[in-house]
């Protein structure tokens, strides 16, 4: 039942293999992380977009995608996000286990060969990227950056964090900065990519009916990384809130107002108080029984959604709600009262138990998804801690009201962000 990751190292790559027969697929994840920086954020963001256009063996995008279709519609994709003060690129590949179909090739072998080429043997023109791909993907990324504003909920969330962290690398968006795209060309990007291969922290995860030995042998054949040892992640810089809460109001053509708040949490995933902080977040706004949902939605009927989210790797807490513009002040008042109530230890034991039960349920559920198990384990790699599902559940169970109240003293409101309509009244 309790399957364990097997660990190995191959050159710059840390290998993590989870042998399991529970799923109908092999799940592969490759994480590449570098510190967030003004100079690198855009080329690093652009890199996976270009890498997904073609490899040495499948240089044309159509042949690249046909190859994935031929591998029984392997699911391939990548994500870009921030974890702590790092910019992470995650490639994912999900491919069915051979035993469900009649094939002669080993689908895991083919998948690793494919992923290895994506990362280390891209389609090139001479000794640089194909400029056709670089130019097209610059357009794609630029459109994605522009499109953030289409989704007002996401836009408001990102703007709030950007305002709160304006003096830190964390202000930078994981997708990079549009104004830097123009300066990037096929040769400068290729140079940045080579440097990225030499410096990033690489972790390769494989889950499925396999073993470390099998994976390691396949990786040695298909990943052509520069030599060296794996790089490790540095701890995030934990900051306190600004001395006076800042309020940012922005106007757009919207019907509903988006109210977001950014708070400094005083602890991170790597901290001892993390379990108490996670329970704190659950009591404040993580669930439908939480203070925000009950007081903003159920009691005051002000909103459809009102919740909080803990970014444990950065040590910040964000609150979000969609409210009628005229109700802005009322909503802010109610939300601030909830934060104060948490500081005063004003929460019911019943709600504490509910919150613990919910978080423990979520932690147990992780076991049922290969990609979630991988993400959970990768959080340990990022934070330099060694939590298992079981140990974390024990930590959650041990959280007392006193420890929550103690952690609540360190949670400080920093930024209030309100996205509203253009009209003056209301």
């Amino acid at each position, binding site marked *: 039942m309790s399957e364990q990751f097997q660990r190995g190292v191959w050159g710059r790559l840390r290998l993590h293999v989870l042998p399991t027969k*529970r*799923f*109908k*697929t092999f799940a592969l994840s490759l994480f590449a992380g570098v510190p967030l920086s003004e100079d690198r954020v855009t080329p690093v963001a652009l890199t996976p977009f270009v890498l997904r256009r073609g490899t040495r063996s499948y240089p044309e*995008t*159509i042949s690249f*995608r*046909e190859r994935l*279709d*031929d*591998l*029984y*519609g392997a*699911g391939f994709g990548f994500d870009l996000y921030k974890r702590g003060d790092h910019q992470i690129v995650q490639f994912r590949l*999900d*491919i069915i286990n051979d035993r*469900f*179909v009649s094939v002669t090739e080993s689908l895991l072998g083919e998948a690793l060969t494919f992923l290895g080429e994506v990362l280390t043997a891209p389609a090139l023109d001479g000794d640089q990227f194909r400029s056709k791909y670089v130019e*097209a993907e610059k*357009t*794609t990324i630029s*459109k*994605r950056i*522009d*499109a953030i*504003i*289409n*989704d*007002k*909920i996401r836009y408001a969330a990102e703007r709030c964090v950007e305002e709160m962290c304006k003096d830190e690398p964390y202000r930078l968006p994981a997708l990079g900065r549009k104004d830097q795209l123009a300066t990037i060309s096929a040769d400068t990007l290729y140079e940045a990519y080579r440097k990225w291969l030499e410096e990033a922290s690489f972790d390769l995860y494989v889950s499925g009916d396999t073993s470390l030995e099998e994976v390691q042998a396949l990786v040695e054949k298909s990943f052509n990384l520069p030599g060296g040892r794996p790089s490790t992640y540095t701890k995030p810089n934990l900051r306190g809130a600004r001395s006076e809460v800042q309020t940012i109001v922005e106007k*757009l053509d*919207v*019907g*509903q107002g988006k109210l977001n708040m950014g708070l400094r949490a005083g602890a991170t995933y790597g901290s001892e108080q993390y379990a108490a902080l996670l329970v704190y977040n659950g009591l404040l706004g993580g*669930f*439908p*029984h939480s203070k925000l949902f009950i007081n903003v*939605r*159920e009691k005051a*009927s*002000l*909103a*459809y959604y009102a919740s909080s989210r803990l970014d444990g790797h950065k040590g910040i807490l964000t609150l979000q709600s*969609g*409210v*009628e513009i005229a109700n802005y002040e009322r909503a802010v008042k109610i939300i601030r009262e909830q934060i104060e109530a948490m500081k005063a230890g004003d929460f019911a034991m*019943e709600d504490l*138990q*509910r*919150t613990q*039960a*919910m978080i*423990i*349920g*979520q932690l*147990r*559920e992780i*076991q*049922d*998804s290969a990609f979630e198990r991988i993400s959970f384990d990768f959080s340990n790699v990022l934070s330099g801690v060694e939590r298992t599902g079981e140990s974390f559940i024990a930590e959650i169970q041990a959280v007392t009201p006193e420890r929550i109240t103690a952690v609540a003293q360190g949670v400080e409101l920093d930024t209030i962000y309100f996205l509203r309509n253009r009209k003056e009244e209301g």
Partner: protein
Amino acid sequence: MSAKPYPKLQETLWHEKLDNGLEVFILPKPGFTKTYATFTTRFGSIDNHFTPPGGETIRVPDGIAHFLEHKMFEEPDGDIFSKFASQGASANAYTSFDRTVYLFTATDEIEANLDTLLHFVQNPYFTDENVEKEKGIIVQEIDMYRDNPDWRVYFGLIEAMYQTHPVHIDIAGTAESVRSITKEMLYDCYNTFYHPSNMTFFVVGGVDPQETMERIKRNQANKTFPPSGEIKRLFENEPEKVKDEKRELQLPVSLPKCLFGFKEDPDEHKDDVRKELASKIMLEALLGSSSALYQQLYDDNLISDGFGQEYNTGPGYAFSIIGGETRDPDELVTQVSEALYEAAKNGISSDIFERTRRKKIGAFLRMMNSPESIASEFTRYRHKGGDLFTLVEVYESLTLEEINERVKEHANPDRRAISIVRSGTA
């Protein structure tokens, strides 16, 4: 109780129809930590004009199925979310065109949670006061969607296609229709559509099928229901022609959003499942991310990664939806339509057909890792008279001739509608 093995998928489905008419299905997933259960009624946004068993024909306000879904969570002794939370379960619900689904996911106290799910859905508690309070929340939900360009362009297309069929009515209704809802109307709908004989219960996860079935049967044996009768759903005749060939709407967006599709005569086929899968292969083969057309449109900067296609069928409706964001909606619609008309004339090649079929089978098998998807898709196909667990066989039995026939039927220039959202010129 009967057990039906699906050797190819290595799954066994348990089934029993209870005395009160409720259909219960259990899919054990040995080794899984979590259990996911859904309780589904065939009552969705399209069911706005009907005759209850032995009653008079009534017409109800738009959005009432969704309103009812919200109100089911309220019980005389408080909010049902808290009850689930005390048992470590996360509960939710959603309303679609033709069904309402109540669900929970839990890793512990499964039997108590099953009872809670059965109990709250079979125990309506509507008062003038709690119905009134919900209106503010739902109006905020409607306002949230009104600001969402993806939702607006999607619904705009369905509104353009359908003249009388209620599929064109927004699932949440309008602020006005929601304000007209009373507790008496909710009870009318409840008494009509929430009879066990109109419902399906599905459990998937690490459960023992016999014990689980016994628990559900015991629960139901303790309750009495009026005899079941036939519900008559009344749909006016939907004309062949689309309502509007083109609809435009202004909202702030980074690039215009354009969706278009073809409306079909829903009665021309008997085997709905086969037709649906054939349609999905058709769209994927011609417009999927590995098609020649997709790559050409991407190279011409006419589409972005978000370009996609889907096929929807349900009682009295069937249509495709194609598109995404684009710099030039007219050009995109012209190019894609031309390609579809061309394919209707010349057919799809057999290697593209085979590759697409493989891709679809692989995607289906990957989906089988997700209890949430299994529960939702199983119920959806069951309502159509199909069986989710035999889809691989259906995919395998489809022929190129059938797909080509599908293209000819579907790509009918007289039945195309277009929906566009773009920024105003202000």
